[in-house]
């Protein structure tokens, strides 16, 4: 069985993004608090833990992409989360903004309310854009949700 790095990273990224979105929107305010039954503490822990893993997965993708660049490997990887154009580039930029503003919220909570206000505002509104883009992405790529037919059954038909 041939397991591709970009395929594994794509689905890890998708699971972590879903966890971050659910816990993040549950923390946005009372109007979305129902997502996790108004348990802001649970949302906070899930968001922190998922954020740590999300950063690790993002770094792994960046290292892989840099390694490909060093090897002059320009092959298009359809499943990869980051890339030089299209939705992959959009994902890369949005990921960087979310990680940097998320880290700013993390730092500024100790001493700077204005900093938190700025980072939180950007973090929240970028998340809405990212959520809309993910729905569009699923719509465009929904053929990938079809379970692949086994090679044997194809041979039998032939």
């Amino acid at each position, binding site marked *: 069985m041939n397991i591709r790095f970009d395929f594994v990273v794509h689905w890890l990224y998708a699971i972590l993004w879903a966890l971050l979105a659910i816990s993040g929107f549950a923390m946005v305010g009372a109007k979305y608090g129902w997502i996790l039954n*108004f348990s802001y503490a649970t949302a906070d*822990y899930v968001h922190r833990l998922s954020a740590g893993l999300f950063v690790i997965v993002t770094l792994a993708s960046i290292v892989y992409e840099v390694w490909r660049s060093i090897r002059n490997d320009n092959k298009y990887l359809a499943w990869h989360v980051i890339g030089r154009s299209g939705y992959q580039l959009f994902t890369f930029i949005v990921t960087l903004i979310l990680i940097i503003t998320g880290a700013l919220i993390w730092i500024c909570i100790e001493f700077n309310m204005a900093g938190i206000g700025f980072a939180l505002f950007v973090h929240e509104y970028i998340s809405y854009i990212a959520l809309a883009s993910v729905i569009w992405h699923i719509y465009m790529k929904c053929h990938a949700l079809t379970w692949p037919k086994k090679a044997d059954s194809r041979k039998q038909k032939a």
Partner: protein
Amino acid sequence: MLNKKKINFWRLAFIFTALVISVLFLLWNAPAGPKASMMDTSMGNMMKGKHLSGITIYDLINGMEYQEQMREMHSHHQGQSPIIFQLSYLTTAAIFLLLPFIIGGAVILGIVWIK
């Protein structure tokens, strides 16, 4: 007319809609009313309204005057279980140790991709 190629998307959308309606139905009678009336806005908008009106770039960089106020706020959260604290340290360490590498890698990729 419904595009047959996109049927999987609509199936997924139906499942999510059903999930959301179920959650809202189950929470219909939950004691969330008072909380919602107290904070019926998003956190980003609330922070913007409270702390970003008339703010300057200088305030974003130099916010040390809040330190005492924030320290007091955090002192109320000290009674949490050790696992939560360890988890918090671990995730904080992971994020802040890896962040420079992410930014560095992004800069390298930016240069390589533009070239």
